[in-house]
């Protein structure tokens, strides 16, 4: 197809469909999972994205193009799906309770907490955070994927990180957490469910 052009530009030619699926299924599935919070629904959504890819192969020019296409479609389909079945968490990020137990980085509990905190963000900042920390995209790439100005992306990143930093600070300061831990745990234990 565009072999000469791809070679000249140093781009990898477009692989076959099966290779594209194997190469990108983790990315597409993980994007979907962070929006729908359900593995089966995420698999369903990811499958739909790949079926759409299958129908659109003729429009793609290179391996990189396919990757960008998949990421963009996965994000937008996930957003659409989340909107259709939207149920906003009752607790906004600003109101989310701070963790009562300090945790070391790499702690799966901390990871889960961070995912939930990000999940409670509004749609656009949540998408920005996902693309930044799952896909490791820079602000310009995030802006191109989501169709928003770069300065908006940066603003979302800064604000979301500031809020997360405030909520997660105790998880990164074990000494401070330990000072408060026994009191906090005692307070929680003294509040039986009504």
């Amino acid at each position, binding site marked *: 197809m565009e072999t000469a052009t791809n070679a000249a530009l140093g781009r990898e030619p477009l692989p076959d469909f099966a290779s594209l699926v194997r190469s990108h299924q983790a990315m597409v599935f993980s994007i979907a999972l962070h929006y729908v919070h359900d593995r089966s629904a995420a698999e369903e959504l990811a499958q739909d994205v790949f079926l759409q890819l299958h129908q659109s192969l003729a429009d793609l020019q290179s391996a990189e193009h396919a990757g960008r296409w998949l990421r963009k479609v996965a994000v937008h389909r996930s957003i659409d799906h989340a909107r259709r079945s*939207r149920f906003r968490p009752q607790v906004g990020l600003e109101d989310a309770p701070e963790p009562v137990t300090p945790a070391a980085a790499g702690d799966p509990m901390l990871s889960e907490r961070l995912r939930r905190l990000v999940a409670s963000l509004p749609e656009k900042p949540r998408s920005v955070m996902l693309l930044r920390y799952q896909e490791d995209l820079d602000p310009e790439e995030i802006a191109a994927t989501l169709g928003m100005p770069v300065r908006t992306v940066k603003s979302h990143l800064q604000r979301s990180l500031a809020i997360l930093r405030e909520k997660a600070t105790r998880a990164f300061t074990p000494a401070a957490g330990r000072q408060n831990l026994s009191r906090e745990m005692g307070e929680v234990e003294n509040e039986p469910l009504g």
Partner: protein
Amino acid sequence: MKYALVLLFAIGPLLAQDVKLPPGIEKLAAKASEVVDVSLDGAMLRLAGRFLSSNDPDEAKAKNIVNGLKGIYVKSFEFEKEGEYSLSDLEEIRRQLRAPGWSRMVGVISKKGGENTEIYMRLDNDRIGGLVILAAEPKELTVVNIVGNISLDDLSSLGGHFGIPDVEVRKDHKKP
């Protein structure tokens, strides 16, 4: 203050009386900017249950909850502005929940957030045979109807799963 209504219905399996949505509530769909409408009878619940994995903690919990249920019905309306529905519609539902067999367990009002939440239960032989939750917010109305045997602890323990924030309240928790 106008309230968004969240109605949750739970209907006991043994007593025949159903809690019905007043016509005024059904018509709210036309005014809502977002509508969630879930209607799962016993057959659909069993079908859904087949796709819940026991290996996934969230899904295993849901599977456990669903086992004793005969139906789950949810209607949630989100409005662009306040005042899109009438409190008198809510009163019609409350009237039905004053029938024998139903008990009002919880009624909380949050003046700050403008949210009223009421929880009604129907007891069958000392077990919860049905659950109705009425939640009213200025711009949101939700009705949930859970039919069958359910544990409130199991249902509320879904906090921390399926993307529901797990609410842990501390005595000194204050909004910044």
